[in-house]
């Protein structure tokens, strides 16, 4: 097996380890639009990083954190729905990122917008995989520590608050973890398909799970299968890797529906 395939598989699997638990929470809390907004903001993050000549990973995390913070601030005034606020932030950031990249291109800088939009998993370096591994471990450890709190907020926010859970802080940390996930998943499936990686394996896992933790494990399993199938399909038929992974995931989802509701 070529080494670049090993790297791609490894990178995909690391991301899926994180997108499993986060994706389940996103599905439980109906946050998929938030995932989308962060993904769109990732283009702005990349543009900023390119401009400042730093790693896109960190540009995306910083801009993602900024967007999360803005979202929380704007949500406090109740005169706009979260939906509308997310739409504004999401598309504002996307447009800003596209404009900045176009300006950079016109100044002669080589910017491969397509790679950001659709992912470029087959070109990851060992160094990138190492960074990915480090970030994923940090996210997993934090999720593990916060799990009961995140879960109780997902069940009923007010009840959790009345029981002494620092809801706002946990939510903010969760948003930051999402920003990290978006940063690492961008290279795998691309900005446009990040939400798919979050939601589809979690949704496929539902019928195979009897507890929240169970669902997380199954979401990771479905994610791993999607990454492996997608990458090999992409090699076999020379299709783009990111969309192939998502397509594999969707196929697995429909296959999962064959299982009767228990």
């Amino acid at each position, binding site marked *: 097996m070529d080494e670049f395939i090993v790297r791609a598989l490894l990178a995909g699997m690391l991301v899926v380890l994180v997108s499993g638990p986060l994706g389940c929470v996103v599905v439980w809390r109906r946050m998929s639009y938030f995932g989308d907004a962060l993904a769109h903001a990732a283009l702005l993050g990349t543009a900023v990083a390119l401009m400042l000549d730093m790693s896109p990973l960190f540009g995306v995390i910083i801009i993602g954190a900024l967007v999360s913070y803005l979202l929380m601030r704007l949500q406090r005034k109740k005169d706009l729905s979260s939906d509308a606020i997310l739409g504004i932030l999401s598309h504002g950031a996307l447009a800003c990122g596209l404009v900045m990249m176009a300006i950079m291109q016109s100044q002669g800088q080589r910017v491969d917008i397509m790679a950001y939009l659709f992912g470029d998993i087959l070109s990851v370096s060992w160094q990138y995989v190492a960074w990915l591994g480090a970030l994923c471990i940090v996210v997993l450890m934090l999720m593990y520590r916060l799990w*009961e709190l995140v879960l*109780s907020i997902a*069940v*009923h926010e007010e*009840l959790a608050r*009345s029981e002494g859970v620092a809801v706002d802080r946990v939510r903010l940390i969760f948003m930051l973890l999402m920003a990290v996930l978006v940063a690492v998943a961008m290279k795998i499936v691309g900005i446009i398909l990040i939400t798919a990686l979050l939601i589809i394996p979690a949704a496929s896992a*539902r019928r195979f799970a*009897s507890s929240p933790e169970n669902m997380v494990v199954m979401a990771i399993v479905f994610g791993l299968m999607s990454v492996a199938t997608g990458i090999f399909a992409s090699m076999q038929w020379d299709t783009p890797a990111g969309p192939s992974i998502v397509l594999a995931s969707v196929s697995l989802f429909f296959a999962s529906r064959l299982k009767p509701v228990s």
Partner: protein
Amino acid sequence: MSEFLIKAEHIGLQINQRQILDDISLSIKPGEILTLIGPNGSGKTSLVRVLLGLLETNQGRLSKKEELVIGYMPQKFHIDAVLPMSVLRFLQMGIKASIDEIQNTAKELGIEALLNQPVQSVSGGEFQRILLTRALLRKPDLLVLDEPAQGVDINGQQQLYQLISKIRDDYDCGVLMVSHDLHLVMEATDQVLCLNTHICCTGHPEAVSKHPEYLKLFGSSLDGMAVYTHNHDHSHDFNAEADAPNCSTCEHKEHDHG
């Protein structure tokens, strides 16, 4: 340390220039049941949220016993089917109770047979008892129950209220309860506070049920209320149809609606 579990003095709350709560004072002692009644939009839930610290207000003073543990049972809510969770897991969430402890409390509330079922599969009345179990597992000094009988049929409601007074006796905790039906909670409560932004009247349930302010708020809806059977061991002398017309004329001038 005071003898009160929780004490509110002259609490007021404004949201978007609208007065939600106006000059509310109340206190709950250990072993005492206080019931909040009031029509929809009267601020019952807002008051509960202020007392729980879920809603901030800068009008009035709120004091709590040191290290007061509150067991909160929110209004009936729905756990999305996409979240797989057994009743047991729901009860375990966020507490360190042992399985034995959970089973014992579940037995007390008659839900031990449900522990391994998905939490979405239980009936309304069962879910209310599950929520109550969850609140009790935290060994509360004060139970706060927001419309505990919501979605429960009349018979189940009476059982639930009996259960609540039994819990008060067994656990010696204070209880703050929201209800919109004084009839059913009458036996289970020591004190009633009738709320409509301000405190309309307060006192012993029987006294409140005859208070003109109460009848003014509930008078019309009380017509025909006496139809269902009451298996009480004593009578409450409660005849809304006779009293209501007398009170339809009373104006309350003692409150200043600014």
